[in-house]
């Protein structure tokens, strides 16, 4: 066994030696410094490699040749070894980061850094409370001194405040130790633990003082003003050390002391941790200074870990799984936070907004993104798994208050972190390139990042045993990152080939029932649309990795067998789609809204998954769904989560914005494919909660009305849009409303209609979006009134849109009518007459926006600005052609799609006898409703009645004379300005007069108010941080006393 004392000796000898040899040359002292750091890393890793980790006591080392209570014992077990490896590696990286600074500073700084590490190492190793105090002091004093590395007034003030707080904490600690010794007669933690908890009030106060001292050192809200100042003004290298090494050592010490405490302390500490987590994140919302923001985030994370360590003890959870959760959170924060501090030091920008300089440096931007996403808790980073497990523990034990605080806090955290990411992505012309990039700093950053990713992957595969298939999205992402330098078309074909192969190998013929349907939608639908991206000449860096990751995760939704796999994949999907939206030129705000709603949805889904019965089987989720039935609460959580993804009314705010601002080709995928993931989820929930939902009825009723209202308001809002993408976005929302309506019926016909519409929506919406993408590409605008008369320039796009709108509106003979027919008949059949009425109204309104779409863009007067517009590139035409063919096909031969859907649905709800197919005729002969639809015959008749007049016209009208654009008579003159004669802007003004009152943005207002209120609460709360050191002291005292009184420790 590696003796931990070597670690101590290495640091000490290094620290003592350095000032001495420095007389000769600074290079020697730096050499010793790095040697010591490397040795410490080696020692801790060597310990980690040893396999003799057995019981706790057996990995203890004593000093002075005496046994435990007499001498000081050091524990160097598995936990210590891991933590020390991290801490010492971080020490090395921090030393590297500070290399330049240390070469310039006086020699003491080198010793100080070594001793800081000594303190941290000792604090982690020691099993003696007073020895812990000594190492704590070493750690703190070294930190205090190193804060002085930056000699600005603010850094000084911050350091002093830190000293006051730290000094106070050590005073509490010492008093506590004194009395604890008085009651127990020992200082050894293990002996002490074995003694059990004494019942004397004095003893409890002593324990309370000890634990509060550590808690204060861990910077809990609101007694942490001093810490924030330090994070804000200390040298970024030191701030990184404080937030990683110091916090890590203290947390571990805190963890060591926990067994000493009486059980009543636990909820107190847990509450304190959770409050710290939630409120730090809340106050951080309005923080503009990057360093301080990181400080808030740091304290929040620490609070959460405190909560995990203490709050879960009451539940039926093994100690190791609690530790695993804490470790997951810690490790992520450890690397990501240090990375962020280092980045801050590298780019030297104070406000978060000015981080837009990163947009010019893709490497740093990528690192920044990784850190932010890791902190937010996205897979594959350990914090993701930790949060999943945490939610599982909380929800599984009905700790609803804690759970909501946790999730709300996480959401707030996501707000400010991702907003920051948005700032960084935003291109700002004024920003200069970051020129000076010291190699050591960069090396630390890179190495830290690589390490974080490695650790993440290690945890993902070793601890959570995820099948390799589940990591395909990530692998695909990395693979495409590597080949990202290739030209677009090459990458595109590789992507198509890869996905096609993957689909063929893993999905074709292997999926059953609804799985195969969604396989076609999710994989097939996106496969075709990849062509659309290939028209770009420039090498759109980062696009394909994310796109491929998205498609793989969509496919994996169908492969997921366990709850964890499902949620992991779901988060991969959310993540990649968020980043893809963020690629849009002005998409920062929209992407933020998107990810916030998505995350809220994801949290609800997670909660719902926890509540639902476990599905640890080796069969994909969708197949299992019929075998397992979940209760209503789980179904409600899951349902709301998926409805957010669908953009149902009330939570639709993200939808128009992000659809509009995302890159045009991607909007097409979002609308046609990505939204179907939500459809898939919703359907799964309905299947799995079928029994409960059918028994209740109220919920599905409400769901149906929600769908109807979504359909209606979506359509109505689409009518009044000037922005073509926004119009289509609202149209998508409306269409999804119909799907919800169909599903809510909980009948065979209803689900068939929902699924059928899902299919149709994929084809026609992708078709329209692809065509419109071409239009936007060529015209350079999204405002419809700036276009006009494009039919002559872009005839193929026109045909696509024409086909599309006929299909969307439900006009026979195209397949859109089929979906309308299914919806209405299923609604009426189930007696939802008024929903059917509202749906009818909505689909009538659809004509308004569809006409507007095609008229203002393609018809009417052409604009001179678009005189030289060409047809869309072939790459955009290819998917359109495919989709047109598909639409024509399923319109002519609807059986090929309706029958499989029906048989898939009949796996869950038996097909009623009265629904039958004869030839291409679908007959409905239910006792309450008869009806039929023969798509094939309708097509034939329509072609006939269309063909005959056409032939006639061609015969009698042989010599038709083409006329120019302005050959019309308007107000008794020939117009010559297209914009006066193109009726486009505010086209439905009269409609607005009649029904505009319905779309006053009440919901948007509501969400704005929520945002505003949160921000003003944050502002009010932040006023406790007056900046005065004495006030902070007062806070600490009050914090200690208030918890004392609330907890009734006496």
């Amino acid at each position: 066994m590696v003796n931990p004392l070597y670690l101590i000796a290495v640091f000490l000898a290094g620290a003592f030696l350095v000032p001495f040899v420095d007389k000769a040359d600074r290079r020697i002292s730096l050499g010793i410094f790095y040697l010591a750091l490397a040795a410490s890393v080696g020692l801790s890793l060597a310990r980690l490699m040893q396999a003799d980790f057995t019981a706790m006591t057996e990995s203890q080392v004593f000093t002075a040749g005496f046994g435990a209570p007499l001498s000081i014992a050091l524990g160097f077990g598995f936990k210590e070894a891991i933590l020390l490896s991290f801490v010492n590696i971080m020490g090395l990286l921090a030393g590297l980061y500070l290399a330049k600074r240390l070469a310039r500073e006086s020699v003491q700084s080198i010793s100080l850094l070594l001793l800081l590490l000594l303190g941290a190492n000792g604090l982690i190793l020691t099993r003696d409370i007073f020895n812990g105090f000594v190492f704590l002091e070493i750690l703190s004093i070294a930190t205090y001194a190193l804060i002085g590395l930056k000699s600005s007034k603010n850094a000084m003030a911050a350091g002093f405040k830190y000293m006051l707080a730290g000094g106070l904490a050590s005073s509490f600690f010492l008093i506590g130790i004194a009395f604890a010794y008085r009651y127990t007669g020992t200082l050894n933690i293990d002996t002490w633990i074995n003694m059990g908890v004494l019942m004397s009030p004095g003893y409890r106060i002593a324990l309370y003082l000890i634990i509060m001292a550590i808690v204060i050192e861990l910077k809990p809200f609101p007694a942490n003003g001093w810490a924030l100042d330090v994070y804000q003004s200390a040298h970024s290298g030191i701030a990184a050390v404080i937030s990683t090494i110091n916090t890590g050592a203290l947390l571990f010490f805190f963890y060591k002391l926990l067994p000493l405490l009486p059980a009543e302390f636990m909820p107190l500490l847990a509450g304190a941790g959770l409050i710290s987590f939630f409120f730090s994140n809340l106050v951080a919302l309005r923080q503009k200074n990057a360093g301080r923001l990181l400080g808030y985030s740091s304290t929040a994370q620490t609070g959460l870990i405190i909560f995990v360590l203490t709050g879960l003890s009451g539940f039926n959870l093994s100690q190791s799984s609690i530790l695993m959760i804490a470790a997951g959170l810690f490790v992520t924060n450890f690397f990501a936070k240090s990375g962020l501090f280092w980045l801050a030091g590298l780019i030297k920008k104070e406000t978060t907004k000015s981080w837009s300089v990163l947009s010019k440096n893709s490497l740093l931007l990528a690192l920044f993104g990784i850190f932010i996403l890791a902190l937010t808790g996205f897979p594959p980073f350990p914090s993701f798994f930790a949060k999943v497990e945490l939610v599982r523990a909380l929800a599984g034990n009905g700790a609803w208050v804690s759970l909501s605080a946790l999730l709300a806090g996480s959401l707030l955290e996501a707000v400010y972190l991702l907003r920051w990411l948005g700032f960084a992505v935003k291109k700002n012309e004024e920003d200069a390139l970051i020129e000076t990039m010291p190699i050591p700093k960069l090396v630390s950053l890179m190495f830290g990042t690589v390490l974080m990713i490695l650790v993440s992957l290690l945890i993902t595969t070793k601890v959570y045993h995820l099948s390799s298939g589940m990591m395909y999205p990530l692998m695909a992402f990395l693979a495409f990152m590597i080949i990202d330098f290739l030209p677009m078309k090459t990458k595109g074909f590789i992507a198509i080939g890869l996905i096609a192969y993957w689909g063929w190998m893993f999905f074709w013929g292997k999926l059953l029932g609804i799985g195969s349907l969604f396989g076609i939608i999710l994989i097939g639908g996106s496969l075709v649309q990849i062509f659309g991206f290939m028209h770009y000449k420039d090498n759109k860096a980062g696009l394909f990795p994310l796109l491929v990751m998205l498609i793989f995760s969509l496919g994996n939704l169908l492969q997921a067998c366990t709850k964890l796999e499902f949620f992991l994949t779901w988060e991969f999907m959310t993540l990649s789609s968020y980043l893809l939206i963020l690629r849009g030129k002005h998409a920062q705000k929209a992407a933020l809204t998107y990810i916030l709603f998505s995350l809220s949805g994801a949290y609800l889904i997670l909660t719902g998954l926890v509540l639902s019965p476990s599905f640890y089987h080796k069969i994909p989720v969708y197949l299992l769904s019929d075998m397992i039935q979940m209760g209503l609460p789980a179904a409600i959580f899951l349902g709301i989560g998926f409805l957010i993804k669908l953009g149902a009314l009330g939570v639709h705010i993200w939808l128009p914005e992000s659809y509009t601002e995302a890159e045009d080709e991607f909007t097409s995928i979002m609308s046609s494919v990505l939204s179907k993931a939500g459809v898939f989820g919703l359907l799964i929930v309905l299947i799995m909660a079928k029994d409960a939902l059918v028994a209740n009825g109220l919920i599905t009723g409400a769901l149906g009305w929600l769908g109807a209202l979504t359909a209606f308001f979506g359509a109505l809002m689409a009518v009044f849009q000037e922005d073509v993408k926004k119009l289509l976005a609202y149209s998508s929302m409306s269409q999804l409303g119909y799907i919800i309506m169909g599903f809510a019926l909980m009948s065979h016909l209803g689900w068939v209609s929902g699924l059928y519409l899902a299919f149709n929506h994929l084809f026609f919406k992708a078709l329209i979006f692809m065509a419109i993408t071409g239009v936007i590409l060529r015209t350079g605008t999204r405002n419809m009134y700036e276009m006009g008369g494009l039919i002559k320039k872009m005839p193929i796009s026109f045909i696509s849109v024409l086909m599309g709108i006929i299909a969307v509106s439900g006009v026979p003979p195209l397949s859109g009518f089929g979906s309308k027919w299914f919806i209405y008949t299923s609604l009426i059949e189930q007696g939802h007459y008024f929903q059917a009425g509202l749906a009818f109204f909505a689909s009538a309104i659809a004509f308004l926006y569809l006409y507007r779409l095609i008229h203002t863009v393609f018809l009417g007067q052409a604009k001179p600005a678009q005189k030289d517009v060409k047809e869309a590139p072939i790459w955009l035409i290819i998917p359109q052609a495919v989709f047109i063919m598909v639409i024509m096909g399923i319109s002519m031969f609807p059986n090929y799609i309706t029958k499989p859907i029906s048989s898939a649905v009949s796996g869950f709800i038996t097909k009623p006898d009265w629904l039958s197919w004869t030839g291409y005729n679908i007959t409905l002969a239910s006792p309450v409703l008869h009806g039929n639809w023969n798509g094939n015959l309708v097509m034939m008749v329509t072609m006939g009645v269309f063909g005959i007049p056409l032939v006639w016209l061609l015969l009698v009208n042989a010599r038709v004379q083409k006329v120019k654009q302005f050959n019309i008579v308007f107000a008794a003159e020939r117009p010559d300005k297209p914009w006066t004669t193109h009726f486009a802007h505010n086209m439905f003004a009269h409609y607005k007069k009649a029904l505009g009152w319905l779309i006053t943005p009440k919901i948007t207002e509501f969400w704005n108010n929520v945002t505003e209120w949160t921000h003003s609460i944050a502002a009010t709360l932040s006023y406790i941080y007056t900046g005065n050191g004495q006030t902070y002291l007062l806070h600490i005292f009050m914090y200690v006393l208030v918890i004392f009184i609330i907890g009734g420790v006496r």
Partner: protein
Amino acid sequence: MIKYLLIALVLIGMGWLFLPLATEYFTPTQLNNLAANYVYGSAADLNMPNAVTSVVVTYRGLDTLGEVTVLFLATAGVGFFLKRKNSIKSKRRHGSEILKSGADLLAPLIILFGIYIFTHGHLTPGGGFPGGVVLASAFLLLLMAQEHFTFSHSVIQFTESLSGIAYVFIGLAGLLLLGLNHFLDPRWLNLGQWGKLFSAGAVPLIYSFIGLKVGSEMSGMLDSLQSDGGDE
């Protein structure tokens, strides 16, 4: 106003928090188990009359190592703050003639006394820390008395570094010579005769290095403090 009210409340609250500690107090009549073991072991195992020293240097030697480190840290910190580059010596006031000659006379005596204190730490009260401070006080005296007294930084640093390293190595010697659990075990040297200067194993050696280290650290700290912080 509210602030003062709060402060008053905090003070009362702290008193209230401490109250049980005082009221529950009773003077014990017997040593607890651990202390008894220490006192017994001091004589039986370590051959050391001063039980406090045996606790400080041997049983809880790691604490003391840490303590020395803390002091080193403080010195380094103070030096780091106050002796930035291009520090200029501030003018010191002349010490009076009496002080000068007194200092010249006393300083060696004081140093000798200091050495006595830390070498006899295992026998009598005192030890490395007071001894070191006494050494530093001689230095202080010289500093005050003589205008141009500059104690060589190299000497201070040399002593400081070397004694520190020596301390660590003595500790390691225990580890290497006696085994895994014997860091800072003084028994690798002969325990010697009861009550003699060279007894109790390496304890006098350790305490001497502690004394030297504390003395040089304190001197260094005083030196940094008296020098002007160096204006930028």
